[in-house]
C-alpha cells in the first residue's frame, strides 16, 4: 500500500507563501512531523496538525525577504554589469538596435502626440454631447453631397417650434477685417457673427463681461485678449468704441480668452447677430436673415433627454413648410458637435476638414516603422544568441532558473529600449517643428498630457517586452550540457522566425516605396496637368468694400502703370467658384439644369486663354451681351444641344433669360478629385476679383503698382494677394502632406531595415567564415562565395516581392479611385520599387560578403 501523503492543498499553500529559499527545509520538517503523527495518532489527526503547522508557518513569510534580497540584488548588479559589457562588446549591434528603436519610438511618440491633439478637438464644452450642427444632404441630379451650411431663419424657427431644441446658435464667418482704435490699426483673422447665447452654449472663456449680456445689443463686439492687447495696449477696452466691418462704429462689450487651438470654431472677434438683422441692426445683411441663402452654420443644443433622431425625423416636414422649393433637393440632418472636426472630410463648407484618413495613414506608417525596429532587435539578438550560449550554460550549471535567465535578457532589452526612448524623446524635440510644418498643426511639447506620458511609458514597456521576450525564451531554453560541450556554438537559433521577420520588413519597405512613387506621380500629375486655362504668372486679389463700389476708377488708375500688361475681372475665379444656379433650357421649368455660374468680364476668357470651340466670347461694346451666356462643353452635353448658339436659358425669379453665344472648352476649375461640372458664364458689371498678368521678371513691379493704387483708394483694409498657381497647389495640400509624410517615413523605414540587414549579414558572414575558408582552400571562386551568402537574402527578397506587390497594388488602386483625373496604375512604379529595394539590399549585404569572399582563408582556419 502506498504511504499516505499530507494534504496537497496545504503543501501547495506552503509553497505559495513561503520563500523558495527555505521551502525545502520547512516542508521537510513538516513532512517528518506528519509521518510521526501518522504512526501514533492516525491519518485525520496528522492531517489536521499538518494544516495547523502550515498555517502557523505564515509567521515565517517575512523570512522570504531576508533570504531573497541579498541574492537577487547581487544578481541584478551582475545582470547590469553583463548587459553593459555586452553593449560594449557588440558596439555595432547595439548602435544599430538603438538607432532603429529610437527612430521607431520617436515616430510613435510624434504620432501619438498628433493623434492626441486631433482627438482633443472640441472636447472642452460641457454641453458638447448635446450640441449638434445642422448639416444637409444636397441632391443635384442624383449626385448627393454633404454640406454644413444652412440659412439664417432656420435656427430661430427650429428653437421655437421643436420642443427638443433648447438653444440655437448661428455662426456666420467673415474671414477677415481691420479694426481701428485711435491711431492703431489691427487686422483680425477670424471675425464671426454669432447669436447672443454663444457664451452660454459653448464654453469659450469670457474674461470680461457678462456672458448673457455681451452680445445682446446691435454693434456690440467681443474681442479676444490678443486683439484687445494689440488694439488698446494698457487702456481698458470695455465700453470703448472702435471702427470695424464696413467702417462702422462698434462698442467693445467683452473680452474673451484666446480661442483654444483645438476648436473647430476659431475666432478673434465676435459681432452680435442682431447687428446684421435688417431694420434692427445697422449692418443689415439680408442674406444672413432669410430662408433660402445657405451660407452659415447653425448649432442646436438639445434638451438633455431629447434624441437627435426625433429632431431628424421631423425635419422634412419643417423643410416642406418653410422652403418648399428646395425641400426635395435638401435633406437636413444633425451632426454631433464633437464629430465635426474629424468626421467632416466629406462635408463641404465645414471649417475643419481634417478627417480621419490622414490620421490612419500616419498611424499605420508609425506602427510599420516600430515593427521594423522591433523585428531588428529580435533578429539581431536571436542571431547572436549563440555567442551568449556559454554564459547561459554556466549560469544554469551554477543554479540559475529558467525564469532568471528570461528576466536577465528582458532586463537587457529594457536597458536598450530605455536608452532608445531617451534618444527618441530628443529626436521628437528636434523633429517637432518640421512635423508641425507638414501637418499644418502647432503642437508643442508642453501639450503632452499626463495620461499621454503614462501611455507612452506603457508603450515603451510593451515594446521592451515584445522585443525581448522571444530572444529571452530562446536563450533560456539552452541545455547546459549541450552548450558547454560546444556542440551548439556556431549554430544559430530562430532561423525560421527570423526569415519571416526579414520578409515582413522587406514587404513593408517595398510597399512604402511603391506608395511613395505613386503618390509623387499623382501629385506631380495634378500640379502639372493642363487645366484648360493659363494658371502661371497670375496674381490674384479680391476687392475690399470701398474698391468694390469704386472699381472702375481703381482699374483705370492701375492700368496707367506700364507693368500691368493684362488683367481680368470677375466674381468667380478658377480657385473660387461656389456660386451655382438653376437654368431652364428654352425657358422650360421642368427641364431644370443646375450649373455653376461664372460672372466675368469680357477680358476673362482671353486672359485665361480658354479656348472657344463654338461662337464667340463676350464683347462689352455690344450692349445686349449682358443677357447672353457662354457655356462649357459639359453644359452643352447636359443640355443635349449640338447647336446651342442662339438658344435660350431661362433663369429663376425676375432675371432675364440668357441667349447662348458661345461654347468654351472644358476646364478644370475645381480639384482634380472631381469631374468637370457644367458651367454657365455671364457678363457682370460688379466684379470683385482681379487677376493680373505678371512676368517672372516684373512680379515686384506689378505688386508695387497694385499696392500703390490700393492705398490710394483704400485706407483701412490691407491688400491681400496670392498667386493662382500656389492657390491651386494648396488644393492638394492633403495629398502633398500624405506624400511628404510617406516619403520621409519610407526613407526612415528603409534606413532602419538596412541597419538590421547589415547587422544580420555581418553575423551570417561571421558564422560562415570557416565554411568560406574551406571552400576557398578547395578552390571556390569569389563569385561562388558571394552567391552562397547572398542567395539566402535573394530568396527572402523574392518572397517579399510576391507579397508586397499585390498588397501595394490594392492599396494604390483604392487611393487612386478618389481622383476623377488620375495616372494609370502602370507596372513601372513596381519595377522601380523592386529595383530600388534590390539595389539597396545588395549594397548593404555585398559590402560584407565581398569582404568575406576576399579574405585570406588561412586567417579563418588557423584558429582551429
Amino acid at each position, binding site marked *: 500500500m502506498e504511504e499516505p501523503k499530507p494534504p496537497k492543498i496545504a503543501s501547495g499553500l506552503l509553497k505559495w507563501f513561503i520563500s523558495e529559499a527555505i521551502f*525545502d527545509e520547512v516542508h*521537510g520538517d513538516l513532512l517528518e*512531523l506528519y*509521518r510521526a503523527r501518522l504512526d501514533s495518532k492516525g491519518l485525520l489527526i496528522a492531517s489536521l496538525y499538518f494544516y495547523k*503547522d502550515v498555517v502557523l508557518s505564515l*509567521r*515565517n513569510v517575512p523570512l522570504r525577504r531576508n533570504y531573497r534580497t541579498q541574492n537577487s540584488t547581487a544578481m541584478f548588479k551582475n545582470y547590469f554589469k553583463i548587459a553593459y559589457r555586452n553593449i560594449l562588446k557588440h558596439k555595432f549591434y547595439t548602435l544599430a538596435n538603438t538607432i532603429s528603436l529610437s527612430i521607431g519610438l520617436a515616430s510613435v511618440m510624434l504620432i501619438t502626440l498628433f493623434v492626441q491633439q486631433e482627438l482633443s478637438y472640441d472636447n472642452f464644452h460641457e454641453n458638447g454631447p448635446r450640441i449638434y450642427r445642422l448639416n444637409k444632404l444636397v441632391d443635384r441630379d442624383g449626385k448627393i453631397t454633404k454640406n454644413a451650411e444652412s440659412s439664417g431663419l432656420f435656427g430661430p424657427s427650429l428653437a421655437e417650434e421643436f420642443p427638443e431644441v433648447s438653444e440655437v446658435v448661428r455662426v456666420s464667418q467673415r474671414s477677415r477685417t481691420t479694426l481701428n482704435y485711435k491711431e492703431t490699426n489691427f487686422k483680425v483673422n477670424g471675425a464671426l457673427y454669432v447669436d447672443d447665447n454663444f457664451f452660454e452654449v459653448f464654453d469659450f472663456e469670457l474674461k470680461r463681461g457678462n456672458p448673457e449680456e455681451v452680445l445682446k445689443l446691435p454693434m456690440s463686439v467681443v474681442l479676444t485678449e490678443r486683439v484687445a492687447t494689440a488694439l488698446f495696449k494698457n487702456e481698458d477696452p470695455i465700453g470703448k468704441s472702435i471702427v470695424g466691418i464696413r467702417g462702422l462704429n462698434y462698442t467693445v462689450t467683452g473680452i474673451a480668452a484666446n480661442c483654444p487651438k483645438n476648436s473647430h470654431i476659431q475666432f478673434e472677434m465676435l459681432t452680435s447677430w442682431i447687428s446684421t438683422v435688417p431694420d434692427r441692426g445697422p449692418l443689415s445683411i439680408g442674406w444672413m436673415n432669410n430662408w433660402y441663402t445657405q451660407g452659415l452654420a447653425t448649432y442646436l443644443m438639445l434638451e438633455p433627454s431629447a434624441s437627435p433622431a426625433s429632431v431628424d425625423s421631423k425635419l422634412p416636414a419643417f423643410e416642406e413648410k418653410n422652403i418648399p422649393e428646395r425641400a426635395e433637393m435638401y435633406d437636413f440632418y444633425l451632426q454631433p458637435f464633437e464629430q465635426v472636426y474629424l468626421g467632416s472630410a466629406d462635408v463641404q463648407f465645414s471649417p475643419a476638414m481634417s478627417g480621419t484618413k490622414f490620421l490612419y495613414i500616419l498611424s499605420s506608417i508609425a506602427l510599420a516603422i516600430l515593427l521594423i525596429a522591433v523585428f531588428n532587435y529580435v533578429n539581431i539578438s536571436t542571431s547572436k544568441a549563440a555567442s551568449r550560449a556559454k554564459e547561459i550554460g554556466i549560469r544554469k550549471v551554477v543554479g540559475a532558473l529558467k525564469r532568471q535567465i528570461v528576466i536577465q535578457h528582458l532586463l537587457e532589452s529594457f536597458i536598450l529600449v530605455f536608452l532608445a526612448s531617451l534618444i527618441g524623446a530628443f529626436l521628437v524635440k528636434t523633429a517637432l517643428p518640421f512635423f508641425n510644418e507638414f501637418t499644418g498643426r502647432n503642437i508643442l511639447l508642453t501639450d503632452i498630457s499626463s495620461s499621454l506620458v503614462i501611455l507612452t511609458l506603457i508603450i515603451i514597456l510593451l515594446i521592451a517586452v515584445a522585443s525581448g521576450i522571444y530572444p529571452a525564451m530562446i536563450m533560456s531554453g539552452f541545455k547546459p550540457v549541450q552548450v558547454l560541450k560546444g556542440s551548439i556554438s556556431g549554430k544559430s537559433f530562430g532561423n525560421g522566425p527570423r526569415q519571416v521577420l526579414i520578409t515582413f520588413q522587406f514587404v513593408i519597405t517595398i510597399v512604402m516605396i511603391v506608395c511613395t512613387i505613386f503618390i509623387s506621380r499623382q501629385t506631380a500629375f495634378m500640379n502639372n496637368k493642363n487645366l484648360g486655362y493659363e494658371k502661371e504668372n497670375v496674381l490674384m486679389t479680391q476687392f475690399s468694400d470701398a474698391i468694390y463700389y469704386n472699381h472702375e476708377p481703381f482699374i483705370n488708375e492701375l492700368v496707367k502703370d506700364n507693368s500691368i500688361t493684362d488683367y481680368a475681372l470677375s466674381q468667380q475665379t478658377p480657385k473660387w467658384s461656389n456660386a451655382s444656379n438653376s437654368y431652364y433650357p428654352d425657358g422650360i421649368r421642368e427641364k431644370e439644369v443646375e450649373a455653376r455660374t461664372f460672372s466675368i468680364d469680357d477680358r476673362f476668357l482671353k486672359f485665361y486663354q480658354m479656348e472657344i470651340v463654338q461662337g464667340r466670347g463676350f464683347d462689352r461694346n455690344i450692349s445686349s451681351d449682358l443677357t447672353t451666356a457662354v457655356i462649357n462643353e459639359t453644359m452643352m452635353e447636359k443640355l443635349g444641344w449640338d447647336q446651342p448658339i442662339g438658344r435660350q436659358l431661362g433663369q429663376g425669379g425676375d432675371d432675364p433669360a440668357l441667349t447662348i453665344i458661345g461654347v468654351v472648352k472644358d476646364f478644370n476649375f475645381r480639384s482634380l478629385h472631381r469631374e468637370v461640372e457644367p458651367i454657365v458664364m455671364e457678363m457682370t458689371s460688379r466684379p470683385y476679383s482681379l487677376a493680373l498678368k505678371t512676368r517672372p521678371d516684373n512680379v515686384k513691379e506689378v505688386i508695387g503698382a497694385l499696392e500703390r493704387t490700393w492705398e490710394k483708394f483704400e485706407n483701412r483694409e490691407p491688400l491681400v494677394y496670392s498667386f493662382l498657381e500656389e492657390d491651386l497647389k494648396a488644393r492638394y495640400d492633403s495629398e502633398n502632406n500624405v506624400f511628404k509624410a510617406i516619403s520621409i517615413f519610407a526613407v526612415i523605414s528603409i534606413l532602419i531595415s538596412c541597419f538590421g540587414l547589415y547587422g544580420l549579414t555581418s553575423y551570417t558572414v561571421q558564422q560562415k567564415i570557416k565554411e568560406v575558408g574551406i571552400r576557398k582552400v578547395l578552390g571556390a571562386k569569389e563569385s561562388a562565395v558571394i552567391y552562397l551568402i547572398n542567395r539566402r537574402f535573394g530568396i527572402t527578397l523574392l518572397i517579399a516581392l510576391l507579397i508586397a506587390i499585390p498588397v501595394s497594388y490594392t492599396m494604390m488602386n483604392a487611393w487612386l479611385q478618389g481622383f476623377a483625373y488620375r495616372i494609370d496604375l502602370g507596372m513601372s512604379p513596381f519595377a522601380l520599387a523592386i529595383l530600388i529595394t534590390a539595389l539597396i539590399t545588395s549594397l548593404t549585404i555585398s559590402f560584407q560578403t565581398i569582404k568575406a569572399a576576399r579574405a585570406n582563408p588561412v586567417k579563418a582556419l588557423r584558429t582551429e
Partner: protein
Amino acid sequence: MKGTYLGEFEELVLLTVGVLYDEAYGVAVMDEIKNETGRSVNISAIHSALRRLEEKGFVKSKMGGATNERGGRRKRFFVLTSYGKKALDEAQSLRMKLYDRIPNVAFGN
C-alpha cells in the same frame, strides 16, 4: 541593543542547538525541547527562532543531503558559532553574578 539581545526562548533554542551539536535541525530541536522542558512548541516557532539566531550570527547553517523519510526534502542543520557560544557564556555569567548577589535574608522566614 537590538540584534544581540538574547530572548528567553531564543536562549533555550540556542542551548538546544549546542546540545544537539551535529544533529540540530527543526524537528530535532523541537523534540529535544519537549523532552528536556516538557514545553510543547510549534515547529514554525522553532523555524523563526533559528532564523533569527542565524541573522544575529549566533548559529550558522548548511543544507544536509536528501533523505527518503522526508519526501526527498533536505534538512537544514544548525551549529553554534563561537559568537553564539560567547553569548551563551555571557548570559550564563550574568545570571550567576546576579544569582550570587541574592542575600540570604531575601528568602524570608
